[in-house]
């Protein structure tokens, strides 16, 4: 539906977006995720038409829209700061797009009424933007974009200006709304929780390129690059070399820390250098040798941090590398196993946990 082909943007020598290719399907909730300055907003603005692509093509439903001005594209944006017109009230803000298209008066009124109800803004039509809370402004901005029934709605960090609680609430509403209207959403954020929670697919960007584009689950469980592994959630990463691959199980020699085995991964050839990645919550600490786990490494507890639902342990392997392990507190309480700083422990995990990333 929206095809981005070899999109490139540079300011002089500064290449902000490099050879980006994306295909976004109709009705998809698509997310561009990345740290600030990675080029995600620039892509969004090129889709909206605020910036000109240096090279490449943007196709909407088969039509080339790369060089159309913003007002000629069937695409609307919800701005980060909402960009509500301070000189118009809520109803006038929402009606703006229709008015520009010279829609008949009665139709404008009807559609505004409908959208106002949909966005939960009933009774606020006469308010000026300055008189509204952040959450309310956000809804107006959304309503103002949606009323035009665009083929694609672009959302630029729509939740970043809201309080945490309101942002969480809004997140749920946004997902619900997207299902109702069925419009393609392209969402830009630096907040991975938002991205993981909302998106059908996520494209992770770094330095102007897309590192990985996949479902939230795959992104989290199977990062393809070191950047993605590091960027999403907590991750322990250890340098290693594949020593053997047999019957779908790879053995990896972690430099100085011992050997680990894992199944369920892209089987790299023996001898390749890899990065062994494992999430802290996939590991267990114990005082005894591993039982029922394929992997176990000796370590010393260096620090612990109680954070309510979990406890975060920093343990040191014999090679000196630090590993983070997250234990569920209720499980610790059940087994009455708490570990003190300085205690010698084993780190255990199953062979189904962990991922190898090519270096």
């Amino acid at each position, binding site marked *: 539906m929206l095809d981005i082909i070899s999109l490139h943007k540079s300011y002089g020598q500064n290449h902000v977006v490099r050879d980006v290719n994306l295909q976004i399907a109709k009705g998809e909730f698509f997310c561009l995720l990345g740290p600030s300055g990675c080029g995600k907003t620039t892509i969004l603005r090129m889709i909206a038409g605020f910036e000109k692509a240096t090279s490449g093509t943007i196709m909407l439903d088969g039509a080339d829209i790369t060089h159309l001005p913003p007002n000629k594209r069937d695409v*609307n944006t919800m701005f980060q700061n909402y960009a509500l017109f301070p000189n118009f009230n809520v109803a006038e803000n929402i009606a703006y797009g229709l008015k520009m298209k010279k829609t008949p008066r009665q139709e404008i009124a009807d559609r505004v009424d409908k959208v106002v109800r949909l966005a939960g803004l009933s009774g606020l039509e006469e308010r000026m933007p300055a008189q509204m809370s952040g959450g309310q402004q956000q809804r107006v901005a959304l309503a103002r974009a949606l009323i035009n029934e665009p083929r694609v709605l672009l959302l630029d960090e729509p939740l970043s200006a809201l309080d945490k609680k309101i942002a969480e609430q809004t997140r749920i509403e946004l997902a619900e709304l997207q299902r109702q209207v069925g419009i393609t959403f392209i969402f830009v954020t630096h907040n991975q929780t938002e991205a993981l929670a909302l998106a059908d697919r996520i494209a992770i960007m770094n330095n102007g390129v897309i590192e990985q584009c996949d479902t939230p689950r795959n992104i989290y469980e199977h990062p393809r690059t070191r950047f993605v592994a590091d960027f999403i959630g907590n991750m322990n990463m250890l340098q290693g070399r594949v020593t053997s691959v047999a019957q779908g199980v790879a053995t990896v020699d972690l430099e100085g820390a011992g050997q680990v085995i894992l199944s369920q991964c892209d089987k790299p050839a023996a001898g390749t250098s890899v990065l062994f990645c494992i999430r802290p919550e996939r590991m267990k600490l114990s005082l005894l040798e591993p039982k029922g786990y394929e992997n176990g490494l000796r370590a010393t507890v260096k620090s612990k941090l109680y954070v309510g639902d979990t406890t975060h342990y920093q343990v040191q392997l014999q090679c000196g590398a630090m590993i983070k392990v997250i234990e569920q507190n209720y499980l610790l309480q059940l087994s009455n196993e708490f570990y003190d700083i300085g205690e010698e422990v084993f780190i255990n995990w199953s062979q189904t946990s962990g991922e190898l990333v090519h270096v």
Partner: protein
Amino acid sequence: MAGNISRSNDLGIGKGLLLKLVTYASVLFLVSPLVILIVLSFNSGRTVSVWEGFSTHWYSVVFHDADLWGAIRNTFLIAIVSTVVATILGTMAALALGKYKFKGRTLVYNVLYIPTILPEIIFGVSLLALFLLIRLPLGYISIICAHITFSMSFVTLIVLAKLNNFDHRLEEASLDLGAGRWQTFRYVVLPNLAPAILSGALFAFTLSIDDFIVTFFTAGATSATLPLKIYSLIKFGVTPALNAVSTVLIVFTVTALALANAMQRTGGISKILKWTLAGMGAIVLLFFVVTFFFRQEKKQLYLYNYAEYVSAELIEEFERRYDVEVSVNYFNDNEELLSRLQMGVEGYDLIFPTAHMVGILKAQGLIQPIDTSSLTNLPQVDPRFRRLDFDPSGSYSVPYAYGFIAMVYNQDQIKDSITSWRALWDEKYRSNILMVDDMNDVLFTGYRYLGYEMDKDPRKLQEVTEALIRQKPLLLKYENNMTRDYMVAGDVWIAQTWNGFIQQILSAGERFKMVIPEEGVLFFMDNMCIPKNAPNKETAELFINFLLEPRNAARNMEIIAYAMPVPAARDFLPDSIRNSQAIFPPDNVIEHMTLFRDMGEFNTLLEEAWTRIKVR
């Protein structure tokens, strides 16, 4: 306006006693003169600063002063037109600079910024030079052009500041929602700039209403604004009416401030304010329509004269009798009269130059012949005063009044008997001497002090200049019109001034004594002339004839205290005037009188000498 956050703190910062004292003392210093002025405007007395009782008399005087209303109308007319044009031009410049990047933008920026800090006097003289060169008569058009020029830049700066702070995402949002660039400009940019444009307009309006200096150089006869009138009132004779005018202006300022503040607080123009503003606009418009309508019916007559040199009562009677509206503007001396006419100030119907100046004006083609056949009272004029060498045909001028420069002193303060101009050089009277602010009279006194005749010898002039420079530290100041006030209040002991003023001072008390110096006095004879292009020549002739009527001449002489060459008028004079030696000097004085003659090329040297004296 005041910031919204109070930074009151417990650190003791900004809380020192000295700080507090300085602040409150300064605020008192700033506000108390205005408060006192307002209080004094309700004073019933004639003196400006001595309280004699409560009265709103001066407000009714102001209210019935047609000249003042004319000035107010001019002020608003000029302010409204120049504000509208300056706001449009200024906003255009701001939009071009803010929305379009081009080469030479910095240059345009600078050209725009400089007018906001260039001294106004530079604006005044340079625009005057331009108007004279392109032969644009000084009047409404010239003032409006000048006001637009200096207020435009302020509008640009204010709008540009807003434009630079403008949230460009609003424009993007508008484009995104399907608006074209022009629609975006119309619906998003312009409405959000409106407050800045409005405050720019208000600023321009205030600048225009308040401006004195630029208007001083570019105004014509009929276009005097309120600040010019106030200047003229301060310079040519303060009356308590000035207190009332000032109070009205202060109240106007405070009201406008309150309104602007209310607008700022509501964050825009609320409906009530909109109606208030619209109502005020309507009243102003009505005022214009009404005054314009009434003005059309009446004949006009514009006089350019010395201050208080025609009886106001007589003017009123003339206005009533012939249904004419008379306006008077003042000049300080003959030099200013000549300058203003040369600058292209048009609109005056009747001027009152001194004899030698008549010759110059005639030679410069600045005056036109008078239709003497219409002057039925011309035979009343003493023939010895007609057809003198500056106007041999007698067709360019009609004699008005004559007099001389002499001295007056306060016998309570000076016990010596004074007989000579030398008294003005006497160390004992340091800082208690006044001289007139008039080149010819001052230089003449210098010549006579040294025992010289006024001739064209540069060396003598040099000596005279030095003598007068030597004298300067002894003087309080050069003063033409306020001499009476200074003398009567006892602020100075001795003054060189004209006999009319001396007569007024003498009538204020026995303690004053006139001196006709033994070295002789300078005689002057003022005349009535009609400038070329005078719009109301016939009315001017009517007025000349009216003044020459013996009964009127007598009434006039009583007020101005100068002699008019109308012998028949003497019969109508009260004894106090008829026998006043200050007005009609004895024959032995007349023998010593000198009439100032045009010095031709030598004038340049005289003027340089005068400048030199003033500068030292």
